[in-house]
């Protein structure tokens, strides 16, 4: 009998030696305390200054605006962009992408603002906005003239201070990269943009606003197709603006506004933005009307 038990034990140990070892290793790996050692022993070194070779940024930008505005192949394209806000643990991103067809005065925006999604179509003097799966007519008084190049020329006064960064490429098109850094007060005061009119006026005698803008860093970077590029030569291909802005009780926050323009002259764009009729079918023509929750319960039954 004892030999039977021994045999039995032995047969187990033979068969399951690997298994037992595996289990032991498992338990050890799973329960062992791990120490996460420090990865930092010294502070990061200050980044090297960028190259500021002499070049005429003003002319480069002026030319790019003109080409992007008038070139025949630059009249329809895809775009993608975002505004990203980093505040402490929170990152709020709004995203925009879509297509543009300038000959038809038409564009599409797939937007997402603070996690809320919507779509927006603009056709000449018609516009449509989606809410969930429903389409509504946009309000005509909220429509703006479709002028995708508006605003770029407002950077021209600052081009004397621009620096040229290392050449780069945007989706395989080689580009010149120019960057300008300034404080927001200087920007508001000197940019010819009428969007700043109100702010500029208030800035005169508002100390809080002066302080706010003086402490705001603005850094704008433009990627412009190389003049000798086979395609998209001298097109504005990418546009990024960083703000670092004081936030009451929250340190400073980072914000990046970014756009990229690509696939110029894609023939599929024209057919997608040919006419508003496709959407017309789905449009709900009605007014919003708030109802008393109690009575709505009855009606929705």
């Amino acid at each position, binding site marked *: 009998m004892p030999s039977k038990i021994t045999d039995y034990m032995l047969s187990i140990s033979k068969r399951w030696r690997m298994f037992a070892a595996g289990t032991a290793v498992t338990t050890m790996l799973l329960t062992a305390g791990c120490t996460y050692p420090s990865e930092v022993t010294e502070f990061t070194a200050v980044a090297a200054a960028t190259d500021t070779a002499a070049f005429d940024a003003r002319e480069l930008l002026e030319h790019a605006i003109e080409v992007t505005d008038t070139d025949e192949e630059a009249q329809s394209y895809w775009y993608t962009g975002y505004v990203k806000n980093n505040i402490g643990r929170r990152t709020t991103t709004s995203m925009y992408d879509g297509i543009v067809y300038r000959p038809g005065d038409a564009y599409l925006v797939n937007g997402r603002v603070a996690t809320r999604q*919507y779509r927006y179509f603009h056709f000449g003097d018609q*516009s449509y906005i989606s809410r*969930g799966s429903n389409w509504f007519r946009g309000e005509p008084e909220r429509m703006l003239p479709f002028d*995708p190049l508006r605003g770029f020329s407002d950077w021209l006064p600052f081009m004397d201070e621009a620096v040229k960064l290392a050449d780069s490429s945007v989706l395989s098109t080689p580009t010149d990269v120019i960057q300008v850094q300034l404080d927001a007060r200087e920007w508001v005061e000197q940019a010819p943009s009428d969007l700043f009119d109100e702010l500029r006026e208030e800035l005169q005698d508002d100390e809080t606003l002066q302080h706010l803008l003086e402490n705001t860093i*603005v850094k704008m970077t433009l990627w412009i197709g190389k003049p000798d590029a086979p395609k998209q030569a001298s097109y504005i291909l990418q546009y990024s603006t960083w703000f*670092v802005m004081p*936030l009451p009780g929250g340190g400073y926050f980072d914000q990046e506004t970014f756009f990229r323009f690509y696939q110029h002259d894609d023939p599929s764009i024209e057919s997608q933005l040919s006419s508003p009729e496709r959407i017309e079918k789905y449009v709900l023509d009605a007014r919003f009307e708030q*109802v008393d929750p109690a009575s709505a319960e009855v009606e929705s039954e």
Partner: protein
Amino acid sequence: MLKALGRYTAVIVYCIYLFLCYHLLVLGAFADWSWYSFILVPIVFILFWLVPREQRKAAVVYTLLFIFFDQALYRVRWMETHWYILNAIFIGLVIYPIGRWYAKLKLMPITLALVVAFTLNTLLPDRMAQGLSHLWPMAVTKQLYVGELKDPFPFTLADIDGDHKDEIITIGNTDQPARIVRIDDRTFEVEDVQFTLFVYEWDKGLKRIPAEAMDASRVKQLVPQEYVGFPYYILTDDLKLQPLVIRQELAESMTQFGTAPFRALVMNAENIRQLLEQTGGVYDRVEQTGRFTDLVLAAGRLSGSYDGQPFEVDSDATEIIGAIQLGEGRQGLIVKGMNISLYELLDGNLTETHVLTRAMQPNLAQSQIMITDVNHNGIEEMMIAFPYTIILEPGDDGVWKILWGTRERSFRVETMMNQGTGSETLLAMQKSVVRASDTNYLTGFTYTDEGLQRKWKVFLPGVVRAIAGDLDGDGRDEIVMTRTDNHKLYIWTPHRIPVIEILSGLTVLLAVGLAVLRLRRWRHAK
């Protein structure tokens, strides 16, 4: 009869065992992608191989079927219980014929699997089971916000009624029913923009303190300003979440691409000026921190007093972090602006003795700062909790001593638990050491001179913010957390039951039992 009852009990116990193993051993292993997960698959194979051949198929199918029930029921989202039950029954009706046809499983075991999966998913919704390895769930609040914003809203813990127990303070909009809007003959729910305070206390269970029973204006000040939806929304002083944008206008203006940053600045300035208007132009104000009093940051000046001695200096800071113990009874003040500065009153002048610049620490603008004394030497440390966690001790000659730091962006310190006691624990979100994914999980660490020593880790998905505090007054901290997408608060207390070890042990026992069974049969057959 008695035999059948015993068999059903065994089936129920097996289902519960499966549930715990699946959530704590299997998912944990894969979430952390520890080496253990590589041998997990062979272990499962061996276990099934040990099952006698004639029952093997049934065992495999039944096990998978239970896991399927659990996964399916987790994904069913119905607010009303009767719809949830109906869904569960429907799932059962679909699965039963498959189990019956393929593995000849009987009705009763399948029903029991469904009932166990249903019960456990109801008791522990939202994958709370995955926290059980080291935490015990004390309570879950109801949903506090209904609407389109995904990010959880800010919350904090504070003792507002002086009973030495922390209360949970947060905001939500579910006090009001959703507004209903009608277009044609369809009705839509539109979220309410009016928020109210939600304050909970622990009194033999989580109880909400009614608004009349507290000083609402004082409590409202305690809700952390976290700039929900900034800059598109602003939370006003009377707790209304107001949008600053209209979608159509945003779409129309964004497609004037060149103007996008110009418009962004205008909107930021508007939002910040509204914030400043609410405070009368003051960036930050603290009545008392340590020996510093009446601290005010406004219009580029920092003023206040230290031990009653007034001071005023130029400062671009926008946030007062707080007082820090420098040893020998000295105290400094940390403020955050473009850089982080440590001030000390020397010879009657407030002097910047230490500075941490944007060049020294990446993403300083976003940083969250905590003041703690992790090495218990009487000199407090400044901890950048996030991003790129670093623990800095102010040394002599204006030098920051680095006690610990990481280059891992996904690492984030959440809170100190049981601060100053023997069981002091640093709660942080840490990703797997082996795996490349940035998904991080709540981990308890102890600080040592060699590094952060891991005490435990729970693979609870989607933890956004965790804060520790003593809610029930037992002298030990509980953990309150928000998680992605559901706008509820979860309250947990750490336990010392070696759940993982018990489950591993049970698995080994199961294997041994099966092995003995198999061996006996094998010998018998010989």
